[in-house]
């Protein structure tokens, strides 16, 4: 008797299991998909020494974008709906590894486009692979100016990286110069006289610091730079050295990941900054307020640069995306998560307008002509093959570069405060609390 019951249960379970795909079809019944699935390669650092936390957020954004697009009947080309899939490749934050993974995605997985990339070093290294194979690419996080600058002309006295120019690479993250200019303008307007830059020794950190240093010095600010290696945990000897000298007016941390958290926390523990004398300006990752307060419990009154749309300006897409991210990770969606999500949608949009998922030239033309509003705002490209002549004085990095990423300076002013409630203090047009700096111990 028992055996019969078990057998019937098993048969029923198998039957239910077999019916599941039918149920799924029923759920997506309003869409009919072609057999072919459009594949995009997604490069993200999924293991150390890369910024794994960033990679995991990007990987989530790849999959969420693909799921949302497929729920919306996928990529529609000439009346045929294609499902889209993003295959994540682990760059490990390493240029060599990034190149190898990009090649594998292109040659073995035969992807139709590439999206993602977190580290500038990986972006710079993989550009050649995508370019050589004619793969339309939208980078969503590398900041190094040269990612978009080297493609068209001599930049900063250096010859172009590729003789034939870069046709296939686009970027929707800001450049280091864009980010640096906001922070430095803010510090100059505050009237600081000397700044200590603590900088990670990477392809992101060094150019960004050079740019910020040049801008600050042009504004009459004295700058000292300290380089550190990513992955360092103990900064106390270095910070003791800082403490032994005259306190600078501001300490600017150009360091990413948990290294940034360790550095900021140890700085606060030693009482170096934020203080009445010294402003603390940490990295954009401080926007991840759950992570920030978990690892920098003394970090109240630290300012940080925020890349991407500010919470008060979130549109419906951004709000919806943030809710999904919070449900998955319990924290606010980071800017690179939003940009990565948008990059997949931009690729879908371009393929639809190009009328092809495989005609790289047509897709590139379509991306150049993008005119779409997604979670981070309205996307378009001012300069590219359709408009190759940059006016005098326009930086070379504006080629295939989204010109309008929002960069702000934000500041926490309450212990454990959510980034959604933190004050936007610069530029004035985005200020939320009517002040450009909240002194430690005060409220706006």
């Amino acid at each position, binding site marked *: 008797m028992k055996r019969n019951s078990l057998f019937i249960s098993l048969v029923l379970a198998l039957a239910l299991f077999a019916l599941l795909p039918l149920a799924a079809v029923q759920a997506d019944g309003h869409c009919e998909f072609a057999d072919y699935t459009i594949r995009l390669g997604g490069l993200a650092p999924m293991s150390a*020494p890369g910024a794994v936390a960033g990679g995991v957020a990007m990987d989530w954004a790849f999959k969420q974008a693909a799921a949302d697009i497929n729920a919306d009947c996928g990529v529609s080309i000439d009346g045929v709906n294609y499902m889209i899939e993003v295959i994540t490749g682990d760059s490990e934050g390493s240029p060599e590894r990034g190149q190898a993974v990009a090649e594998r995605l292109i040659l073995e997985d035969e992807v139709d486009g590439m999206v993602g990339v977190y580290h500038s070093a990986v972006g710079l290294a993989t550009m050649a692979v995508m370019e050589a194979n004619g793969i339309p690419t939208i980078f969503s996080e590398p900041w190094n100016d040269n990612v978009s600058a080297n493609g068209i002309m001599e930049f900063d006295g250096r010859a172009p990286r590729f003789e034939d120019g870069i046709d296939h690479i686009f970027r929707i993250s800001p450049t280091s110069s864009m980010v640096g200019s906001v922070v430095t303008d803010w510090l100059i307007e505050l009237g600081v006289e000397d700044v200590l830059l603590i900088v990670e020794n990477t392809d992101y950190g060094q150019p960004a610091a050079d740019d910020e240093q040049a801008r600050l010095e042009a504004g009459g600010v004295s700058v000292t730079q300290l*380089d550190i*290696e990513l992955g360092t*945990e103990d900064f106390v000897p*270095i910070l*003791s*050295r800082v403490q032994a000298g005259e306190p600078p007016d501001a300490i600017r941390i150009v360091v990413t990941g*948990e290294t940034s958290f360790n550095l900021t926390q140890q700085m606060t523990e030693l*009482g170096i900054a934020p203080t009445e004398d010294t402003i603390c300006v940490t990295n954009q990752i401080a926007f991840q307020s759950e*992570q920030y307060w978990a690892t920098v419990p003394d970090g109240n009154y630290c300012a940080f640069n925020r890349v991407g749309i500010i919470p008060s300006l979130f549109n419906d897409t951004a709000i919806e995306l943030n809710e999904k991210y919070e449900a998955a990770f319990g924290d606010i969606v980071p800017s690179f998560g939003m940009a990565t999500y948008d990059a997949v949608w931009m690729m879908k949009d371009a393929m639809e307008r190009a009328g092809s998922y495989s005609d790289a030239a047509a897709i590139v033309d379509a991306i150049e002509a993008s005119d779409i509003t997604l979670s981070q705002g309205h996307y378009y490209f001012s300069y590219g093959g359709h408009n190759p002549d940059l006016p005098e004085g326009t930086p070379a990095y504006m080629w295939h570069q989204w010109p309008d990423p929002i960069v702000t300076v934000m500041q926490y002013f309450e212990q454990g405060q959510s980034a959604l409630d933190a004050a936007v203090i610069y530029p004035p047009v985005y200020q939320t609390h009517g002040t450009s700096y909240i002194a430690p111990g005060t409220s706006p």
Partner: protein
Amino acid sequence: MVIEDTLFVLWLMVAGPLWAAVGMFVLPQVNHGKEEADQLPLTTLRVAGVIGGFALGPLGVGLFYFEPHLIRRTTLTVGVIVTVFASSQVLARVIDPNLPSAMWLLLAGPLWAALAAYFIPRHYRQLEADDRNVLTAAALGGFAIGPLIFGLMWKTTPRVNRDWMIVLGSLGAWQIYTIFAIQNATNPCVAAPYHVTYLTQQTANGIVIGSIYSLMAVGLTLIYSVQGIVSFAHGQLYMVGGYFSFYFLLHGANIWKDLTGQEIVINPLWGIPVAAVIVFLIGAAFERVFLKPMHEGLIERVSEYAILITFGFGFFVEYTTLAIAGPFPQRTDRFIEIRRFTLQRTQITDDFAFGPIHLIGDRAFAMVVGIVLIFALLYFLQRTWTGRALRATSQDRQAAAVTGINPTNMNTLSFGMGSMLAAMSGAALIPIFAWVPWVGAEMVGRSYVIVVLGGLGSVPGALVGGIIVGIVEALGAGCHPDPSRGAAYKEAFALVIFALVLLLKPTGLFGREQH
């Protein structure tokens, strides 16, 4: 000015050695027949002549002639250190940093070190004298006192004991300090009047973090001493120890509330024994399943197997943790609510003040935890039957087995305890650092340096090695002429020490020679 300074340096270079030579040969002769002097060995008289002549010229030789009772090892040691320190301070204050004389000092040290390291050990071997530590002593001595080391070690071939090493090492350190002071007069490590405070601060920083380094390295060395293998999973066990503490604190309070209805806040200190027990069991189980066959002769290529299996175990632990805990950094509450201890500034004289010295509260607490645990381990190893059995097994497995000790159990115990020590250091540091699944990578590299520096298999060596590495890193980062490079190369300073130890004393500071 340039000419005067050059003459001064030349005087130091020529007159000091000249009077040292005079003292070395003359002092024993003129002392002959004196009752007190006759009680002193000839070697001691020669050394006294060298030091007295070099330090004070004819005055030094005369002093020892008229007051031979002053010729004692302590006097001579102090004399050498004071002389070199005084000379270096004079040099540092007088010489322009750009003068060639400073460069001469910079180059002469390594040159004499190389010459001494090459010739003196050969000479010892030719004489069939005891040549233990001679290479190290010759190199250190050549670096510190240049050609004088030949006078000290060539003619008399003294047995080089620990006192020698300490004296010569101190001299070498002073030499480096001198060159530093000349080349980088504004460096916070040498610039008066705050350099004493600054050096104390950095040394304290090094000791604090070094104590935790030691705890982790002790585990590694314990495994090596008993099993003869290096655990490549040590960093991951350190990491997972931190996570066990984190999750215990996270869920422990909730479970307690469910059981008793009372809300409590659990101090991270309690996470340490929890992590210790769990990781001990994990380590012991791993040893039983994967390493035991190695000791039973079931594995053909033991060395390769040990590397691969522990490496693979490390990968498994790291990526399993990543899958469970995620990549986002975590941290527990503080051990203590005191953010930092500050020794306030004290005015000693009109020109000199000491302080302030800052120590971060949680780090100081973790240091105390680390030191207590290491001494508890030493007590266990020295005073308990099981600890003695472990040591016996590490010395001679077969002999230990004959006396009734089960080497198989000792293997399991050593791996479990080694893993446990790694986990305890992780649990001690999770309130201090942002914790991620790959946090052990940096720490384990440093542990290898420490165990080699202290001597593979030596627990006291790991303790001292950890503190040395901590201090070297702190002073390297804090004193490097270029602050930026000092910060960037912080981890590399320990590797320099590592390379020097491998070169000069391959057995490490406390290591046993393999026969």
